[in-house]
Each structure stands twice: as C-alpha cells, then as structure tokens.
C-alpha cells in the first residue's frame, strides 16, 4: 500500500487561557493506519484529539497556533466549514454517550443533521454503520428501543456506529474503553483493526497496553510535547528517549 499522510500537523500550539496545553507539536499521520497518542494524565492527548475536529473551539478562552493539514488543506483556514470538518473527522468520547432517543435515531442523528429526512433513506446507512461496529446482530430486532437501555460496551459500539454513519474519513477515539470491561474492550479493539481498512484512526488509549495491542504507530506525549513517535514495535522495543522507556516500562505514569 502506498503510504501517504492523511493529516500533517505543523508546529501546533494550543493555549487554554494562559496555560499552554500543547507545545510545538509536529507529526504526520498516515492514512488507513491506527495511531495511538498516549501519555500520562494531563499530557494533552485529549486536547490534541479535540483540535483535530476543532471541538476545542467550544472552550471559551482557547487559542490555537500552527497548522493542521487534512488532505493538504489547513483546517484552521477561515473558509473551512467546521460542521463539514466534524463530519469528516468523527469522534468517540471516553464515556459512552448515547443520546436519550432510540438506537435508530442515535445512528441517524448525524445523517439527519446533514439533511436526510425520510426513514427509508436512512435505513441502509444505519444498518451498514451498525454492522461495521459489530453491533447489528445484537440490536437488529430492537432498533426502536431506547439506546440508554444497552449495556456500556454496546453503548460505546453504538457511539462508534453513530460516527461511522457520517461516512467520515478520520475517526478519533478518546479513551474509548476507559469505562468498559475487558470483553467489551476486546470487541472494540477487534473492530478498530477492521475499520482501519477504510478509515484513518487516531486513538488516545487509556493505557500503554492498549496502544501496544491496536496501534500501527504510536506517539508519546508528555506535558503537551511530542516526545517520540514511530511504528509501535520500534518505539516499544527500542525507545530513543529515556522518558518514553520510563513510561512504557511503568516507572512513572
């Protein structure tokens, strides 16, 4: 496969009021691979993910510098439509967040925002999204029941399906398994490995082990700076920076 960079980040700085959360961050993210951005708490991984779909814009007092190029186009350009960007760069949150509506309506939420109105025009997309998230068989008979009745793991797969229904190009996952049991976690990790065939996936794992299990590439962040990045095997077996090896081997974190 020809490797090309889906996302190029150049000298990204992010400030929250006077506090700098991301420092001089530069990275190229290849398409159709899983990148795990990991680091101890407060190292800026969540903020980093949220700059990629500009969800950070919602925070009062947030300020960004630098460039993030998605397919060569800077997402901070004034002519970029933020809503379109967010449909291209979908996000799954750390806590499963089904909206208080039916399973079907949850998945159809994004497509409906985009203007699809009739149920008939949505049905195929909903089924496809649920199948890709490996949830279809469990919910196909109760699409009209409230999504809040699903188990935690199912809810999180629902959230993944909801993002897939947007037909995005990039999927961001912010500690998607931090509230889940090991079996649900394994299911989600399995789906991620299949989804990377079609999407570029960036995950902030909730622990180092998860980064090791799912990621093709990893990026280690500390205090808002990118310390080291590269193919997972290389970084894990032969870290160049002492801080990386200390963190991976559990000496701090």
């Amino acid at each position, binding site marked *: 496969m020809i490797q090309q960079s889906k996302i190029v980040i150049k000298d990204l700085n992010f400030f929250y009021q006077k506090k700098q959360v991301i420092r001089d961050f530069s990275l190229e993210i290849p398409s159709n691979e899983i990148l795990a951005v990991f680091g101890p708490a407060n190292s800026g991984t969540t903020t980093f993910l949220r700059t990629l*779909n500009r*969800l950070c814009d*919602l925070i*009062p007092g947030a300020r960004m510098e630098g460039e993030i190029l998605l397919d060569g186009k800077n997402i901070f350009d004034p002519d970029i439509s933020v*809503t*379109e960007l*967010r*449909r291209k760069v*979908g*996000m799954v*949150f750390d*806590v499963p*967040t089904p*909206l*208080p*509506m*039916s399973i079907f*309506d949850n998945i159809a*939420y*994004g497509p*409906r*925002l*985009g203007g699809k109105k009739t149920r008939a025009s949505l049905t195929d997309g909903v089924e496809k999204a649920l199948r890709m998230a490996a949830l279809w068989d469990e919910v196909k008979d109760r699409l009209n029941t*409230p999504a*809040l009745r699903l188990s935690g793991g199912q809810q999180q797969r629902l*959230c993944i399906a*909801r*993002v897939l229904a*947007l037909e995005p190009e990039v999927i961001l996952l912010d500690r998607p398994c931090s509230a889940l049991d090991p079996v649900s976690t394994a299911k989600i990790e399995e789906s991620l490995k299949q989804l990377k065939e079609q999407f570029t996936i960036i995950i902030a794992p909730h622990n180092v082990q998860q980064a090791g299990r799912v990621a093709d590439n990893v990026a280690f962040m500390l205090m808002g700076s990118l310390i080291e990045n590269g193919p997972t095997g290389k970084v894990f077996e032969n870290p160049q920076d002492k801080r990386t090896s200390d963190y991976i081997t559990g000496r701090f974190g």
Partner: protein
Amino acid sequence: MLLRNTSLEENEVIMKISSRTAQRIAKTLIWASALFVIVILLAIIIFILIKGVPEISWQFLTEIPRNMGRSGGISSSIVGTLLVTAVAVIIATPFGVGTAFYLTEYTREGKVTRIIRFSAESLSGIPSIVYGLFGFIFFVMYLKLGWSILSGGLTLAVMILPTIIRTSEEAIRTVSYQYREVSFSLGGTKWQTITRAVFPSAVRGIAVGVILGIGRCVAETAAVILTAGSALRMPESIFSPTRTMAEHFYILAREGISMEKAYGTAALLIIIIFIINVVANMLINRYVAKGH
C-alpha cells in the same frame, strides 16, 4: 466557669441520645411533616369539592350568570378564564424559553446575564396587584386596549414570565454537556444542537414551568380584575372584557352574592387545574417516551 459546666452537662445530655434514637426521632418528624402537609392539602380540596361539586350541573357549565351570579351558570367565566390563560401562555412561553436558551447557550456569564436574572427574580417577587396596576396603566389605558381578555392575558404573561424563564433555565442547565458535545462532534450547528439534543431532554422541565404559569394564570384574581374587567357576558373576541373564574369567585364571596355559586366556581376551578395538569403530563410523556 459556671457557664462552661452547664454547656458540658448539656453536651453530655446530647451524647446520651444514641444514634439509633436520633434516627428514629428524625424519621418520625419527617414522616409527620409529610403527613401534615398531605392532610391539610386534602382537607382544603375535599372541603371545597364537598361544598362545590353539588352546585356543578349542566346548567352551571353552559349558562351565563344571571342576576349578578345568583343564578344561572358560569360559562362566560369559564371561557374568559381559558382565553386569558391561553393568551398569557402563548405569549410568555416563547419569550421565556427563548430568554432561558439565551442565558444558557448563547451568552457567557457576565453583566447581561446577571441583569436579566436579577430582573427576573425581582419580578417574580412582586405582588400580583402591582402587575394589575401596571397592566391597567400600560395595556388598558396607554395602549387603549381597554378592559379586555388581551389586556388581562398580556398582564399575566408579564407576571408568569419570570417563572417560565427560571424553570426553563434550570431544566436546560441540567441537560448533560456531553449531549451538546456529541451533537457538535457529529457536525451539528448550534441551532441543530439546541433543537435536537438539548430541547428534547429539557422539555419536561420547561413544561413544568409552563404548567406552573398556567396554574398561576387560572388562579390569578388581583391582576385580572384591573385589566380584564368583570363583565359577565360571553366574550366575543379577545378584545372583549371578561370575568375570570377566580375573579367571579372573589366577587360572589366578597359581595355576599351567593356562597353556593362561589363554592361551585371554586370546585370547578380545582377540577380544571387538575385536568390541565393531567393532560399536560400525558402530552409530555408521549413526547419524551421515545428516549427512555
């Protein structure tokens, strides 16, 4: 020295009550207060229903008052009450809910929000007769709307606005921030997020405010007496004067015209408020049922 001793002794006395006894006493007191409230409420409602329900007949519901209300029915008052309330709610709800959304979603905490909130709180503490006076001067005289359903409804709209703003704001604030984030992250605009993710979760709380407002309108006497007039004939339009049920009840009892008819009116008022509450709850449940 002496003082100290006493306080020590007191302490010992308090210490002697075991935590289990304290628990039992607290439980009894809490039960007693709940029981007390229920008994008083039921007593009032039952008393009025016993006195008033026998007065309610087909004639009472369908005829207009005759002989100053000594005989006949109260149909014109029922219609007047419903119209005045409808005008008030139809005007106050969009403004109130709109203000609540402005306060919660469209602006950050600052001077403007503080001024709005302070005004709303001050307004909700003003006695209704003052609203009546304001309505009389502004709507009846200055805008030349006269004593009319419209004047009464507008006055009541101003009166219930703070209630609707406050309860709506409360309801909108309790909607999880995550719903907003999810909606934005799926490419929703602010308006889409508010109407599709926030509003459905807040609607129950907003409705509580509106129902409270309806209750206050139906029950209001002082403010409408000065603005809607006290005509007994059937209103022809919202520009006609009318006499609401609460007002009719007040005049019947106050002037000693007919206590029987007064009780009948009061009983019907209670029944109408009850029906409004039940119907409103059913509507909301049907609307909200999908998600839970």
